[in-house]
């Protein structure tokens, strides 16, 4: 079994809600509320969930772009929750991120050459001619070439821009890359090319991915294990195969049944979720999914379900799989 590269223990990120001239704190938006999981060396870990469930915040907190409110982040057996200065710089070199919108994540005044060489310069990786050569290598690695070196971000297409962003992420020779919906701003044909590129790069460079997405099809294509987030909490975590074959948590079932089916002759019984996602500032009591869950029973609104192990190491936070409870729906 592969060793853990990243381990997150009970991570929380709460934003204070302030109001008035004095900035009194009225409450907290619990964007991430006690999430624990580990990412193994060399795997692609998928994190799925609807908009606003805290998956992007979780990604950014892991990278220490935001400071966690509580919990620990352990990277390569080192606690990086509180590192600063030199330690943080070292950590930033090892972990990189690719954002959703490539255009807005680049300085519009920089050419590709200057984007890439600056990152190398700041991290003490290469200077001058060597940096430039490395930049060309990186561009070729992501399917661009030397002729793109002196262009500005606005001179590229969406897919090319994302390739530049991937090249930038790779320019520090990272081990771990957070991909924050890297393909969702692109059209489908370009998405497929980029996913293939990401897969190839992972194999070639021995990368570990945290792949954040709301697109189940993309996750299915790229990931080895998948965590499902709902309203700041992890509700299910298992191998991709098991998850797609037999989703356990009712929310996961609903997510999967919402994936468009390309074959119109296939009839499916959809699991439809009622209502709107509640506000993370004021989450429902007990199981956070209970107001929208078709299977909710007495216990759900009162007790918070913890992640528990169900048949062969799958984790799910749902009382339907409690030993005492017999599942009515089979």
């Amino acid at each position: 079994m592969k060793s853990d590269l990243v381990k997150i223990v009970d991570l929380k990120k709460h934003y204070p809600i302030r109001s008035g001239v004095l900035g009194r704190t009225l409450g907290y938006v619990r964007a991430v509320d006690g999430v624990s999981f580990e990412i193994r060396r060399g795997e692609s870990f998928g994190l799925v969930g609807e908009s606003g469930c805290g998956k992007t915040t979780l990604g950014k907190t892991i990278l220490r772009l935001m400071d966690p409110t509580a919990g620990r982040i352990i990277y390569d057996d080192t606690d990086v929750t509180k590192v600063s200065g030199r330690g943080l710089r070292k950590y930033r070199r090892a972990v990189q991120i690719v954002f959703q919108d490539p255009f807005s994540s680049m300085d519009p005044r920089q050419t590709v050459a200057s984007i890439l060489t600056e990152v190398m310069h700041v991290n003490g990786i290469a200077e001058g001619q060597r940096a430039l050569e490395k930049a060309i290598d990186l561009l070729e690695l992501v399917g661009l070439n030397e002729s793109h070196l002196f262009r500005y971000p606005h001179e590229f297409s969406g897919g090319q821009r994302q390739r530049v962003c991937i090249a930038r992420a790779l320019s520090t020779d990272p081990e771990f890359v957070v991909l924050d919906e890297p393909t969702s701003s692109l059209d489908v044909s370009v998405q497929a090319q980029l996913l293939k590129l990401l897969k190839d790069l992972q194999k070639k460079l021995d990368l570990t991915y945290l792949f954040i997405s709301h697109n189940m099809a993309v996750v299915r294509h790229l990931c080895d294990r998948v965590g499902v987030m709902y309203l700041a909490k992890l509700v299910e975590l298992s191998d991709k195969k098991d998850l797609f074959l037999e989703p356990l948590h009712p929310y996961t079932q609903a997510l999967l049944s919402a994936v468009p089916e390309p074959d119109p002759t296939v009839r499916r019984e959809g699991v439809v979720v009622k209502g709107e996602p509640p506000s993370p500032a004021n989450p429902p009591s007990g199981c956070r999914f209970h107001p929208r869950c078709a299977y909710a029973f007495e216990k759900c609104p009162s007790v918070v379900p913890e992640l528990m192990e169900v048949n062969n190491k799958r984790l799910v936070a749902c009382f339907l799989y409690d030993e005492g409870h017999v599942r009515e729906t089979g």
Partner: protein
Amino acid sequence: MTNQRTVLRTRSRTKSIISTLRLLRENKLVFSGFLIVVAALLVAVITPFAIPYSVNSTVHFTDKWLPSSLSHPLGTDDLGRDLLSVILWGTSTDFTALVVVLGIALSIGILVGATAGYLGGKFDEAIMRVTDVFLAFPSLILAMTFAAILGHAIINLTIAIALVYWPDISRLVRGQVIAEKSKPYIESLRASGMSRYRILYKHILPNTIQPVMIQLTFKAPWVIITLAGLNFLGFGPGPFTPDWGQLISNGYAYFFEAPNVVIFSGLALLIASLSFNLLGDGLRDVLDPRLRR
């Protein structure tokens, strides 16, 4: 290694200068404004070397208020000096003052505005209340107050105007920095391991400079006119440091006897202000990197 780097840098720099000039030439009005501003700056630099200062300090009472002639193309002023030479010297005075005003105001404005915007919080609040105090007074009256306190030398007028002008720039820079620092690319720069200091100086400030430059060119006429106004009102250093405002002030009482003094000094003021406005109009297009090729 460094060689390649300089090549890289000069390549992109020449590329951007050429494309800047090309963009400037596309609009005739903007380009003429640009040419006049450049010409005026050249005049301001050359005049002290080309026309002896004694022209300003030598008084010929017998030659007062002469009309245009071959030896005095624009006539003479109230002290019998050649008006053309004095106006050219005035250009030198006014443009030097302009550059100094913009320099001081820009330095204070960027330093204060960028720090306030980037750091935010209590520091930001405090600084903004200070600028509020400055902005609460009408600018000319405030400039007059400073000029009266500091004294009559031209450098004091310059400082007075700069003191009135810096809050404008620092407000503008602050707003731009706040808008820029919340853009997603700043976060990706942080993720690449860059320090806050580097992000501010290498990325945020260069991206805020465009509106600041435009504001500067639009405000340049205001600076020139305020300076002329202070001189007109008698806060200036007197006739031997010639300036357009002071020429108008001396000439307006004799407008019907010798109109050339007021007309030509006023014309100089008008053309200088207008050309800065025209240049400012085109500058937005020129400074936008998206229009570069």
